[in-house]
């Protein structure tokens, strides 16, 4: 294990950025999101969850796929090049790292999504263990250890030092680049900090959410629960939960007429939107209740059913803090998980 004084992280970032692009949590107009590092960027080392998740780096909100040129009856197709930007993504929390496992299940399953795969291949992820979890955190419920994230490199912030440990070949390669700035670190201090964080995680208000009732064989029972009507009653049908969610990956494919040609792009979409399943002759989910239900059924039943029990929620708590009407997956898990007699 290596370490570096937190006072010198600026040097670390500069060194990383010499060889490839560096994305990390940056404050802009009062909001912290992943952004490209520059010497004068306001890097936020303390912020727990960025407003948007890290999925943006691999599955951007908008991605151009192909361009078309229309001339009379003829069409010209010009596929858009895949991203070839080599980059390091720094400061990813354990929950967001777990979300990449979820996204991999979707995008790297056959047939592989080349757009996503290219970004995954070109990206090296440096995670950061949590030191001060929020009351809205519940990653432990999904088997995530906030004190020990996965990633190519994992880092810990302890007593003014940044501890650094490579976990993969990509991580080793990055470590080679920055080794000169580092000195050897004492593992014991990190262990101490891990234990403290795990203790906090266990005591958080949502630490004991019960996922046991959410089993694939309960699909129809859960789907037909009368509780959905009440849960979805105040839903605005906006896409906030979907867009801030690190695992939501539904997308739309759209054409944009530039006046000189057509750009076909894909963009994040939300099953909460009324037009999500709209076809020329109607939609199979006309009510907000059905759309609301789809989102949570997908995360808690459908996705695990297709992916060896892996839930499509990582407990990051973004929907808990961002939903305009404060309806979120924690409330849904509690309401649906209750005994039916209650």
């Amino acid at each position, binding site marked *: 294990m290596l370490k570096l004084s937190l006072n010198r992280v600026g040097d670390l970032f500069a060194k990383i950025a010499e060889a490839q692009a560096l994305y990390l949590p940056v404050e802009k107009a009062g*909001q912290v999101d992943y952004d490209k590092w520059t010497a004068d960027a306001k890097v936020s080392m303390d912020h727990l969850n960025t*407003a948007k998740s890290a999925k943006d780096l691999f599955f951007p909100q908008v991605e151009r796929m192909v361009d078309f040129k229309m001339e009379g009856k003829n069409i010209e197709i010009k596929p858009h090049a895949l991203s070839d930007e080599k980059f390091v993504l720094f400061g990813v929390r354990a929950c967001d790292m777990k979300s990449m496992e979820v996204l991999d299940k979707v995008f790297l399953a056959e047939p592989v999504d080349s757009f996503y795969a290219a970004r995954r291949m070109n990206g090296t992820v440096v995670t950061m263990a949590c030191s001060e*979890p929020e009351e809205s955190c519940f990653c432990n419920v999904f088997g995530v250890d906030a004190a020990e994230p996965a990633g190519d490199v994992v880092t810990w912030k302890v007593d003014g030092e940044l501890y650094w440990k490579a976990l993969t070949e990509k991580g080793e390669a990055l470590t080679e680049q920055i080794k000169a700035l580092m000195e050897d670190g004492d593992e014991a201090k990190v262990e101490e900090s891990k234990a403290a964080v795990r203790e906090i995680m266990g005591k958080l208000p949502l630490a004991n959410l019960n996922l046991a009732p959410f089993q694939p064989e309960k699909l129809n029972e859960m789907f037909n629960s009368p509780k959905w009507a009440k849960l979805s009653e105040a839903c605005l049908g906006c896409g906030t939960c979907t*867009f*801030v969610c690190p695992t939501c990956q539904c997308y739309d494919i759209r054409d944009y007429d530039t006046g000189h040609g057509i750009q076909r*792009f894909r963009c994040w979409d*939300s099953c909460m939107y009324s037009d999500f399943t709209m076809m020329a002759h109607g939609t199979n989910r006309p009510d907000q209740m059905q759309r609301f239900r789809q989102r949570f059924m997908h995360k808690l039943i459908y996705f695990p059913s297709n992916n060896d029990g892996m839930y499509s929620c990582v407990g990051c708590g973004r929907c808990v803090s961002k939903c305009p009407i404060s309806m979120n997956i924690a409330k849904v898990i509690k309401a649906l998980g209750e005994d039916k007699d209650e």
Partner: protein
Amino acid sequence: MQRVAEMMLERAKALLADGTVNRVVGWEMGEFFYDLTPAVFTADGLDKFVYNGFSGANLSKYMIKECAKDGKALVFLKPCDTYSFNQLINEHRVDREKVYIIGVECRGMIDIRKIRDMGIKGVTAIREEGEELIIDTIYGEKKCARKDALLEKCLCCKGQEFVVYDELLTTGEAFTVGGNNRFAKVAELEAMTPGERFAFWRNELSKCIRCNACRNVCPACSCLQCVFDNPKSGIASKANADDFEENMFHIIRAFHVAGRCTDCGECSRVCPQGIPLHLLNRKFIKDVNEFYGEFQAGADNTTKYPLTNFTKEDVEPSIVTNRGGEN
């Protein structure tokens, strides 16, 4: 506030019992102390009814949906919420006969995000002691001035007047909320050079993720199908294709609600990216006031809207060029 909440619950029970209403629209207790959800209650669900410093959500817009149902609904409206409701009456979006309105005293609502932005993490409870908030967190007790944690809309409170109601629940105690000049920031933006102003708005609007929370929560955005959702409109879009769209979505929306926006502040309250969208609306309000005389949307049911009504005193169109100046 606690006393008002108790009175509200009592009145809700009474009005349900005597059949005046068959349901109650209010705020429901959440997992934490701050995550209240708007909800429709019947008698047996009222144990989860709550009214406290986190009942910031304006319930007026829900009444559009409620008015399509059978029977009369009770809704609790804070003073500023009544302006939104009145505006919805003016726009024929709600049926006044199907709603029983109880106006409830409000001393300003707290913004949990402002508390988090102070660097306070892991909040578990909040107590109000006079003008101070005592905040329990996993990491120990913290304090802040109540005023510093108020929602933006409350800092520029419209006052304690209710513009539409059937009955009122107030304590009669004297207090003041807010007091900030709501046009101060607008004036500051107006004083900037066009370049500075553009930079300010790019910085803010580039954060937009087009989740549509601002639009969907807005009581003035009550179109059955929004032009941005209509595939036949030619401008339907789910993501901002470029900077231009990023800016224009919000500017077009501000134009669309101009003269109808009551400045209820819900757009900024719900924005997950903390974009001060209310500033766009306030710019329009300020201009309307300057061009056509003081006007508050939703204040009454008789005043004609300045933007859809012609008088000889109206400002000349040439004002646009004059104000545009050299830039």
